């Protein structure tokens, strides 16, 4: 026993909280702006402030700036107190803070400039990606160093979630950002097509899991019982839901790729693990809500608790909706539609937003040693936020289901009821206006919070908390065990055995599969009985042992997380047969088409247009034959998209004359009256860097695209020749554009989509293959 005096570093907590509030306001404001642009296309300001460039700015600002900074504030505050020690290094804390803000500013500058990798929530280009990795490692060192210096031996559940966050985000970010740089602001993903899509959504889904969920669960576990002044409901529920959550989440990424060209076994794994995630997710919600049992009357009086309770409830809703949307037949209706947009905002506005507001209203008055300026204003904020979310969610549900049904509606004669895509867009426009109203209400509540907290902060003065605590250093029996005891833990080996049997189950035929399923059941039952007997005998639990050993705990977490990623990514990347390379007919892009493709990426076309026709009858009728994996083998990065505000473009090549594309890009409403697409007239005057063409081919060759030396050497002339055919075609229709204008490159790329060859064929084999001719609607 010894007495220690600790001064916590609350300055860094304050800084992160203010940064979160500042960037949260920016992120919400951009959100309202882009919602307005979808309802009224006139709100687009080309080229820097068009929807397609601002949408990544909105998502990055909300995820990494608003929630990111809020998460760090919560982690720095609670970690020091749960470990009874100041952060290990003030310097590292400062580097973390200022480094993170510099990254955010870099993102805010580069994204409107069109500097992007086009990988959703990972759009930032490679120099910023490196900075993110460095700052994250600084954070990790500071955190684990603090763990090493701790005065509280046993790690509380909040810290488990922080550990899972730190190690997993590092792995996700590094693998998904692997790319070869072309220039300081342009790189190509080392993965292509199906592999790139799988890596991206393994990342994308787990960014939601380990950036927007696990750290916020950790924050809930600290701040909710603090605010409610009630005991946390169940330690054993924490154990079960933590380990099942971190293990299962990683597998669920392919649910973003249902009905795509991803191999079907991976799609099924994605769907099933998403369904199995329902209970682990609800475990977190239950531990939060049941902590309030016997204290529900406090929710009426205390705005902080209102925010926490509603936030946790939205978490429960979102994590029920997620598994639901992962069911293949539901995904067939909802994917590419606004239902998904509604779903993610249930999470972002409901779970993340309300938890953040609860945190700020609780935290800042404590750090500034003064009561909250106005409880009534905080109450008003709560109701404004809640109404705003409801308007947002309902409008997106209605819009998504409505449009999804219209896309697939088929008449008695077997043809599409709504063959014009614009028709389905015009039908949901009223819902787009309701969304603007909902978002504005939510933003107004946020502004009210800023005022309220500003008044609070001005009334108080900040100070680092100082506490005197008694530290109990007497070793417990749990601490006298060796590393061998950790490795020989029965829960560990029963899990490994059960998992191995389940893995075998996947590969075998019917009869052994039934036997293996029974074996899994028996192993689980024996495991349960053994654990029960050990607990009855009063033996220290294995979980209790590893929760006192951060290194062992971290390694086990990392293993649990890596299993799913390795199982899904490695076969798809390493086994050639997983993605058929029968692509002899598949020609690499020409230099001009690559230039056009980079413009497609720069402008963010993928934000609203997919390039992935799903194997569904209605899509066959609307867009043509379902996309096949081998058609994307040269796509670094893939451009499948995840949302159809406009129609799919995969088989767009050759469907319209070049004049149509010119007119459509200059003024979309000229060819598609009622469209809400931003106009891109500047493409006709901006020039491409022709000299870069050869370097692009060369880099692509290093990534495995088969270009011959002559093709690379002739890149400049080949660009001019191919451009000449587009220019001549346009000139015949009275449109004059320079051959090296961005417009020509873009049209060359668009005319190439879904075809073996582009506008100027270089070879003379026959066409009339089944795949081309059978594409319906041609």
């Amino acid at each position, binding site marked *: 026993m010894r007495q220690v005096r600790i001064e916590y570093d609350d300055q860094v907590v304050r800084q992160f909280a203010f940064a979160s509030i500042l960037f949260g306001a920016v992120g919400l404001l951009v959100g309202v702006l882009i919602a307005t642009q979808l309802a009224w296309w006139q709100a687009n300001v080309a080229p820097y402030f068009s929807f397609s460039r601002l949408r990544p700015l909105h998502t990055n600002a909300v995820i990494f700036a608003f929630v990111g900074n809020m998460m760090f504030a919560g982690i720095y505050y609670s970690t020091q107190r749960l470990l009874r020690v100041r952060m290990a290094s003030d310097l590292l804390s400062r580097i973390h803070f200022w480094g993170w803000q510099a990254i955010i500013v870099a993102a805010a500058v580069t994204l409107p400039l069109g500097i992007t990798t086009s990988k959703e929530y990972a759009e930032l280009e490679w120099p910023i990606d490196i900075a993110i990795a460095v700052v994250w490692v600084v954070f990790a060192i500071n955190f684990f160093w603090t763990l090493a210096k701790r005065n509280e031996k046993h790690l509380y559940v909040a810290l488990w979630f922080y550990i899972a966050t730190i190690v997993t985000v590092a792995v996700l970010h590094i693998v998904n950002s692997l790319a070869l740089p072309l220039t300081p602001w342009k790189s190509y993903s080392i993965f292509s097509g199906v592999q790139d899509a799988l890596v991206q959504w393994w990342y994308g889904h787990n960014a939601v899991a380990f950036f927007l969920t696990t750290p916020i669960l950790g924050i809930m576990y600290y701040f909710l019982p603090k605010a409610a002044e009630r005991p*946390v409901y169940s*330690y054993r529920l924490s154990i079960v839901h933590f380990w*099942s959550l971190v293990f299962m989440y990683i597998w669920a990424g392919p649910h973003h790729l249902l009905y795509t060209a991803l191999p079907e076994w991976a799609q*099924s794994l994605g769907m099933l693990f998403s369904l199995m995630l329902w*209970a682990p997710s609800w*475990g977190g919600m239950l531990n939060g809500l*049941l902590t309030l049992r016997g204290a529900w009357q406090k929710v009426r009086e205390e705005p902080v608790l209102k925010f926490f309770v509603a936030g946790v409830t939205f978490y429960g809703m979102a994590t029920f909706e997620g598994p639901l949307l992962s069911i293949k037949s539901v995904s067939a209706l909802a994917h590419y539609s606004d239902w998904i947009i509604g779903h993610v905002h249930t999470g972002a506005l409901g779970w993340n937003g309300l938890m953040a507001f609860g945190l700020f209203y609780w935290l800042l008055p404590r750090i500034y040693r003064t009561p909250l300026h106005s409880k009534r204003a905080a109450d008003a904020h709560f109701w404004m936020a809640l109404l705003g979310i409801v308007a947002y969610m309902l409008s997106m549900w209605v819009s998504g289901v409505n449009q999804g049904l219209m896309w697939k509606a088929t008449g008695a004669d077997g043809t599409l009821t709504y063959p014009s895509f614009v028709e389905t867009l015009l039908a949901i426009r009223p819902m787009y206006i309701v969304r603007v109203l909902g978002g504005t209400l939510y933003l107004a509540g946020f502004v009210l919070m800023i005022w309220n907290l500003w008044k609070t902060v001005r009334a108080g003065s900040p100070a680092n908390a100082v506490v005197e605590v008694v530290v109990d250093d007497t070793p417990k029996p749990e601490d006298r065990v060796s590393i061998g005891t950790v490795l020989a833990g029965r829960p560990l080996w029963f899990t490994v055995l059960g998992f191995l049997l389940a893995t075998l189950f996947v590969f075998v035929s019917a009869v052994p599969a039934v036997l293996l399923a029974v074996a899994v059941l028996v192993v689980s039952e024996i495991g349960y009985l053994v654990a029960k007997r050990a607990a009855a005998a009063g033996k220290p639990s294995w979980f209790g042992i590893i929760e006192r050993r951060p290194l062992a705990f971290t390694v086990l977490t990392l293993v649990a997380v890596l299993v799913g990623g390795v199982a899904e990514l490695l076969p798809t990347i390493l086994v050639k047969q997983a993605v058929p390379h029968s692509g002899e007919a598949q020609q690499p892009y020409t230099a001009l088409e690559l230039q056009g493709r980079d413009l497609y990426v720069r402008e963010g076309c993928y934000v609203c247009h997919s390039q992935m026709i799903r194997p569904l*009858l209605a899509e066959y009728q609307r867009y043509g034959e379902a996309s096949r994996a081998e058609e994307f083998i040269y796509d670094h990065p893939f451009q499948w998209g995840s949302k159809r505000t406009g129609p799919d473009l995969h088989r767009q090549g050759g469907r319209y004359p070049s004049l149509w594309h010119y007119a459509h890009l200059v003024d979309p409403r000229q060819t598609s009256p009622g469209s809400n697409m931003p106009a891109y007239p500047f493409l006709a005057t901006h020039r491409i860097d022709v000299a870069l063409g050869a370097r692009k081919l060369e880099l692509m060759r290093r990534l495995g695209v088969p270009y011959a030396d002559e093709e690379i050497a002739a890149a400049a002339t080949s660009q001019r020749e191919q451009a000449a055919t587009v220019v001549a075609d346009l000139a015949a229709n009275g449109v004059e554009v320079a051959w090296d204008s961005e417009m020509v490159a873009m049209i060359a790329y668009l005319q190439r989509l879904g075809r073996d060859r582009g506008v100027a064929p270089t070879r003379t084999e026959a066409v009339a293959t089944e795949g081309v001719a059978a594409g319906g609607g041609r």
Partner: protein
Amino acid sequence: MSATSPDERKVVHVYDDIEEEDNHLPNWWLAILIGSIVFSFAYWFVYHTTGLRPTPLAAYRADVAALVEARIRANPTSPEAILALTRSPEALAEGEVVWRTTCAACHGQQGEGVIGPNLTDRYWIHGHGPEDILKAITEGFPTKGMPGWGPIIGPERSVKAAAYVVAHVVGKDLPGRAPQGEPVD
């Protein structure tokens, strides 16, 4: 929800004044956890281990095949109908008979062109799609010396002849009569 008797509500840990209890897991929650795992094994067994039910891709192929068949029935002279016949050996055999007896005299045994144009190169005067070829066979271009064969050989044999031309002549790129018409992709 499981009942919580007072002795179950024991506090197991305290961290920074946060008490942690160790209550039972609610039974309905366990039912969801175990139920979803059992369902997953069953789903895999049905769709992947045994294939008792078709996967989405298999279902899609069946749907498309049914759609194409319905379209062929509704319109036996559509491009889709002609393409479907190119996969039928019987139809191609009948089409070949028509080719040998009716077409080969002017277009050559392989379609390389004699009096009529070369049908194997990539230059076309009147288009090379299945529907263009069928139109040429049935209506012909009387002013250019190609008679309309539709009234003579009948619609059924016309379609099969078109299928044969699509499958075995178009795109062979044989040396023969010099190119005529416009080049195509």
